[in-house]
Structures are given as structure tokens and as C-alpha cells.
């Protein structure tokens, strides 16, 4: 009979190995000017796209010598995890794709404020009024549609049209994801609970659920469904690649400060319980600096830069031409949206 102890010890040792096995980036300290941060390390809980944050981490590390360990997950998964872990959380920085996850952690009182210099790099519309975290990138809500099944003349004027009976069976969305829930939280903020409940009831009657925004776009492209409510960058990324899931699809930006033109702000915050506050603040400062935002302009993520006056990737329509509604990212309530969606039978 094998005694159990060696197995458990091995498991414990390997658990440490495997949890660090994620994407710890090995770095060499820069040979340039000495930096007091060099040789230290931070842990980033990353809900943003992995390639994007990896690029930020690599450049930051090359610049400052700080070792960045990334932990990847989704918005709600990581936000809930940070709240569960509380002060014992190893996270120094939290990066998300949408704002409601940031509000969840902020409302649990786990963020320490962001340095004033960093905040000064980000225009007021792309960061919360509470200054507990900052915006690092942005994405626009769009209606992706197939012109052969949905002619331009029949495009909806507003997001609210989609709950009308005339749209039954004609549009799709992925309600389980944090992306869609962020759009719903903007709708809640802009139009109030009663209007949102009514719209969600209409959505339940009309829409076709898919698993993931990519699946929605693929289905629209294939002609299975005339339209879908997603974020803009899926289309642009596919167009920059093989176009296999977007060749037959076009994007409709709602504009006119409609809830359908909601621009969702990706957030970055520093955890109060983090062990390396200086390096964490420096990382956020780097992301919102010109160099950091240039990664969005020149890279393949196709998301919008928000800070330091950096323009968007040339393939994208400029952010200020989108006429998005003004929404304070701090007011987006993910928890209430989820309970409204559960009550409507969408989740």
C-alpha cells in the first residue's frame, strides 16, 4: 500500500509550480538608468485579451525591470475571485474588459486610488468619477448585420427597437458574457429599471442566444440570423485576418447618444492589499502613457486607446465620431443587471 503523504506533498509542491506556471515572464533588468523598481515583481489579474496585456507586460518589463506575472480569466470570474480573496489576494493590479467588474471590486472597498499623474493622462469621460480606478481602453457596441438578409433601410434606429415584435427571430446576442451584461448595465443607467425590464422581456421573446460574441458574428456572416449585438473589435480583427467570419457582414454604429452606441471602458485598478504599490501604480501609468496606448494603435487588438491623446488604429472609425452616450463608468451596476436578466429568463 502506498502511503498517501508523498502524493500530497508532491501535489502541494506541484500546486505551487502549476499556479506559477501561468505566464510568468522572465525578465532581465535593464542596462539603462537604474530604477528603484527593478528586480521587484507584481501580479496582474488580467481579464483583458491575453495578447494585449502580454504586450503591455513585456514592454513594461523591458522598460523598468519589474517582473510581471499575469493571471488570466474573465471579468466576472476574476472580480468575484478578488472579492472572495479579500485582503489575502495576491493581486497587485486588476485589468478588465468592461467597467461593471471594476465597480464590483470598488464597492467591496478593495481598490486604493490611482496616482493623480496617471489620472491626468486619461480624459474624464473614460474614467470613473470616484477616481478609484482608471480607463485603459474602450470598445463600442455595434449591430453586426448581414446586408443580404437585412437591407440598410431596415436597420434599427435605436437599441430599444430590438425589443419590438417586428424584430422577433431576427437578432442574436450572447447574454452569458460580461460584454453583453456591460451593455445592459449602460441601458439600465441611461433608461432606468422599468424600461430595462420591458426591453429585456422583449429581448427574451425576440432574440436567439449564442455562446460568445464570435459565435454571434459567425452566425450573422453565415446568414443564419440577420443581425447581432456585439462589440466592434470582433469584426475588425476578423477583417484584418482571414475574413472567414465577417466577409458577408457589416457593422452598424447606432450613434446619436443612443444606448446602442455605448462605449464600454476597460478598467485598470490597483489593489489596496497589493504588496508592491509603487510598481503597480507604475504599470497603470505605463498603460495609460503614450507608449502603452500606442500598443492599442499599432497592435492587433482593434480596441480604442483612451489616454494620452493617442489616436485609434487607422482601420477604426475615430472614437469621437461615434457620438456615444455619456455614462459614468462608476455607476454601472453589474449585479443588478444580472438579477434583472435572471428574472427575465435570459440567464
Amino acid at each position, binding site marked *: 500500500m502506498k502511503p498517501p503523504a508523498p502524493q500530497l506533498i508532491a501535489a502541494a509542491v506541484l500546486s505551487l509550480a502549476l499556479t506559477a*506556471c501561468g505566464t510568468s515572464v522572465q525578465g532581465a533588468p535593464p542596462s539603462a538608468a537604474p530604477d528603484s523598481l527593478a528586480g521587484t515583481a507584481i501580479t496582474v489579474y488580467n481579464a483583458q485579451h491575453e495578447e494585449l496585456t502580454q504586450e503591455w507586460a513585456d514592454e513594461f518589463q523591458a522598460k523598468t525591470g519589474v517582473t510581471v506575472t499575469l493571471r488570466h480569466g474573465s471579468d466576472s470570474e476574476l472580480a468575484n475571485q478578488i472579492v472572495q480573496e479579500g485582503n489575502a489576494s495576491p493581486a497587485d493590479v486588476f485589468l478588465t474588459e468592461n467597467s461593471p467588474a471594476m465597480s464590483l471590486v470598488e464597492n467591496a472597498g478593495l481598490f486604493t486610488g490611482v496616482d493623480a499623474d496617471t489620472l491626468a493622462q486619461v480624459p474624464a469621460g473614460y474614467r470613473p468619477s470616484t477616481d478609484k480606478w482608471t480607463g485603459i481602453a474602450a470598445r463600442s457596441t455595434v449591430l453586426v448585420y448581414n446586408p443580404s438578409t437585412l437591407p440598410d433601410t431596415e436597420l434599427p434606429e435605436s437599441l430599444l427597437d430590438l425589443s419590438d415584435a417586428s424584430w422577433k427571430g431576427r437578432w442574436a446576442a450572447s447574454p452569458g458574457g460580461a460584454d453583453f451584461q456591460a451593455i445592459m448595465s449602460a441601458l439600465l443607467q441611461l433608461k432606468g429599471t422599468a424600461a430595462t425590464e420591458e426591453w429585456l422581456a422583449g429581448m427574451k421573446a425576440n432574440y436567439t442566444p449564442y455562446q460568445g460574441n464570435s459565435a454571434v458574428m459567425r452566425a450573422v456572416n453565415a446568414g443564419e440570423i440577420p443581425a447581432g449585438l456585439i462589440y466592434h473589435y470582433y469584426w475588425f480583427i476578423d477583417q484584418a485576418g482571414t475574413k472567414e467570419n465577417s466577409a458577408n457582414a457589416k457593422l452598424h454604429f447606432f450613434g446619436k447618444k443612443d444606448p446602442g452606441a455605448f462605449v464600454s471602458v476597460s478598467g485598470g485598478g490597483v489593489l489596496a492589499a497589493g504588496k508592491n504599490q509603487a510598481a503597480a501604480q507604475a504599470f497603470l501609468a505605463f498603460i495609460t502613457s503614450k507608449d502603452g496606448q500606442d500598443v492599442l494603435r499599432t497592435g492587433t487588438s482593434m480596441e480604442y486607446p483612451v489616454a494620452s491623446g493617442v489616436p485609434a488604429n487607422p482601420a477604426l472609425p475615430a472614437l469621437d465620431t461615434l457620438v456615444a452616450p455619456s455614462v459614468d463608468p462608476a455607476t454601472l451596476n453589474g449585479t443588478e443587471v444580472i438579477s434583472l436578466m435572471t428574472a427575465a429568463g435570459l*440567464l
Partner: protein
Amino acid sequence: MLVPVGFSAVVAVQTGWDVLAPLIFRPRVAELLLNTVLLVLLGVPLTVLVGVAGAWLVERSDLPWRRVWSVALASPLAVPAFVSSYAWVGVVPSIGGLGGGLFISTLAYSPLVYLPAVAALRGLDPALEDAARSLGLGPWAVFGRVVMPQLRLAIWGGGLVVGLHLLAEYGAFSLIRFNTFTTAIMVQFQSTFAGPAANALGIVLTLLCLVLLAVEGSTRGNLRYARIGSGAATIPTRTRLATATLPTTLVLVGYLAAALGVPLVVLAGWLTVGDPWAQRWMPQAILTTALLGLLGAAVTIVLAAPTAWLSVRRPSRVSRVLEGAGVLASSLPGIIIALALVTVTVRLAPSLYQTVVTVLVAYAIMFLPRALVALRSGLAQAPLVLEEAAQALGVSPARSRLRVTLPVMAPSAAAAAALVALGIANELTATLLLAPNGTRTLATQFWSASNSVAYTDAAPYALLLILTSIPAVAILFAQTRRTSQKGKP
């Protein structure tokens, strides 16, 4: 084994009926209930039909190339259900709903009925069938009144396994957009973590499982069939298919084409596009999967060994209760076990949350029966007399076990380890929920690629998953062969 689920139940009770009731009794749950119940009610008979028909054709008819078919009909088990879904969505993108779910289930899970049916058919005494023929029953009546009742145990057992798989399956149904309780729990988990809504759905799913187990247990019946009397069983007369041979063979070819051919062809197609093998995380995924498989197998064998020992060497109420608890716990869907473990670790043992230990515990709970069955049969092959002989020669009891029993048990322990390790390699749901952030296994990498509709990226992982399943299917096939031979005097 049952502690995590029990704890989850306690937490659910604590949450309070007034919070849970509106979450359980709502239209969405009714939708999911309808889908899930229909899936099981229609899916189990379909798979039983296909499985038993295949087994009968291979064992009791003169189908040409029987040897090839007997292996081929078990081979769809090597294609995980979610890979099958992924392939079929690539071919028929509009596949979905209950029809799609039943189609994929039949393709993927029929071997689970086919294997026990083949074993049972092999062990039947053809004298009963001959006697029935001589008393004037036609071939169909012989099949219905003589053969089927003897297959009852195999069908009930196989049907139960299929039913539990249907309740637990997440990946396959999610890819074809068929909403069952398990897919809805996953969506809730992604949105609310281990919130009350997820637990509410989990309670209903657990109840469905228990109902299935109870129905199977109570209708199984107590009749056992055994040969009495001397002599050896004759070789069964095989029904001549004659003109039905060609259509039957075509149907079988069609089934294999759908279950095995389509996934392999689709995979081959995706693999030739671009350079899918050069993916950043593939080496790490392979390594992590191998490590988790080996560790998980070790932990499971260690946990199963005492129970196996007790049930073979010192059978008693205790050993039966232990075994029953283990089987019951593993019957619950992976998502319930994972959700329960999340609840337990977050509330009671936060330091274990998001660590490999929790994942390994989940694997141990889920795969214990597989290890138990193999270890038990291995122990049964090492009768006590060998140990007693060694002790009579002067070796201490402990050393006699080490030097005599353990080596004899080694092949079945290895088979147990292999089954568990390979099951872990294909496991998706619990790994998604419990593994530390950034853990990448073949299944999770496949999942994230197919969810981003990056079909070419998903293809190499799918191929690797199939390759890791093949040895497991081979072992299972050899095991059923062996159990069927035990019935022969």
C-alpha cells in the same frame, strides 16, 4: 466523497427558501427542465437501441467482417462528445436544439450501451434460445422474450451511464446551443460565481440525477440469470442476415461515418489550414494535461485502494457503504462536484481555493469508480491463498502483501491508473471551474479556441484529445471482453 455535495446542500438550506424559491420556480427553469428531461427520456432509448442493435449484429448474426465491426462499433468512444459537436457544427452550422442534441448523444454515447451488451450477449447460454426455437417461437420472439430479459442488467446499467452522461454534458450541448441545466449552471457561474442562482439550478440537477438513479435501481429487478447443470455452453447459432446483409452493413457504415468519419475528416480539413501546430500554449497545455493526469491518477488510486481492499478482502456493511457513497458521488455531474468544491473551499478552506489540490480532489471524486472497478478485479485475481502461502514460508503479513499481492495486482492497477489519467485528460467542466487561473489543458485550450470560433486553432487539440482517448477505449474493450469470459465455465 459526499462531503462537498452535502456541504453544498447545507449552504443551499442556509440561503433560505425565500431566496431559492423564486430562482428555482421560474419559467427559465421550466424551459431547462423540459429540455433536460426530454433529452434523457428520448436519448437513453435511442442509444440503447443503437447499442443493443450493434451488439446483436456482432454477436448473434452472420454479419461479414464481424471482428472488425466489434472493435469499430466501440471506437466512437474515442471521440469526446464536445469534439463531435465541434465537427458537426463545422459541417452543419445550423445543427442545434433537441434534435441536434439527440443526434450528437446517440453518436457519442451508444458505445456505452454497446460494450456491456456485447459482454452480456457473449455470456448468454444459447441453449435457452435453442429451446425457445424448438418450442416454436420465431426469431424476433426469441429475441424479445429470451434474449432481451437476459440483457436487462446490461441495458439498465448502460442506460444509466448514458443518462448520467447526458445530464452532465456541458461542452457538446453548449457548442450546438442546446440549453440544459448544466449549460445554464455554467453560464450562471460565469456571471455570478457560486451565487444562489447557480446553486438553485444545481439543486434541481442533483435531484434529476437522484431520480434517475432511483428509477434505475428500483426497476432493475432482482432476477439474475445463471447457468446450472453440467456441460459446456454451445456456440450460439447466428441468424442469417441474407438479403439484409447489405442494407445492414450500409447502416453501420453510415453510423461510423457520422460518429467517427465526420470528426476525423473535419479535423483533417482544419489541420491543413495555416500552421495550427505552432500555437503558443500548446507545449504547456500538453505538459499540464500530462501532469494533472498522472497526479490525479495517483491520488485516485491511493484513495480507491483502501475501499477496494475492504470490499474484496473484508466485505462488510462498511465497505458496501463506502463503495455506494463513492459511486453516488461520482454519479453527480462534474459541474455539481466542482460547484460544491468551490463553495466548500471558499467558505471553509480559502487557502485551497484556486489550487491544484481542489482540482485533484474533484478528479478523485469523479473517477473513483473507474479505479475501484479495476483495482477490485485485480485484487480478486490475487487470492488470499497466495499471501497465506507466503506467510507460511515465514514472511510477515505486510511484506507478503508487498511482494506477492502487489505485483499480481500491478497490471490492473496500471489499467486503473490509465483509465483515470485518460479520463482526466478529456475532462472539461470541472477543470474550467476549479483549476487555478492560467492553467491550460488540452481540453480547456480546445474549449477557448472553439468558443472564439477559431476552428483551426482548436483542431490540433481535438486530435490530441482523440489520441489520448484511444488507449482508454482499448482498455475498456479488453475489460469487457474479460468480464464476458468470466461467465464461461
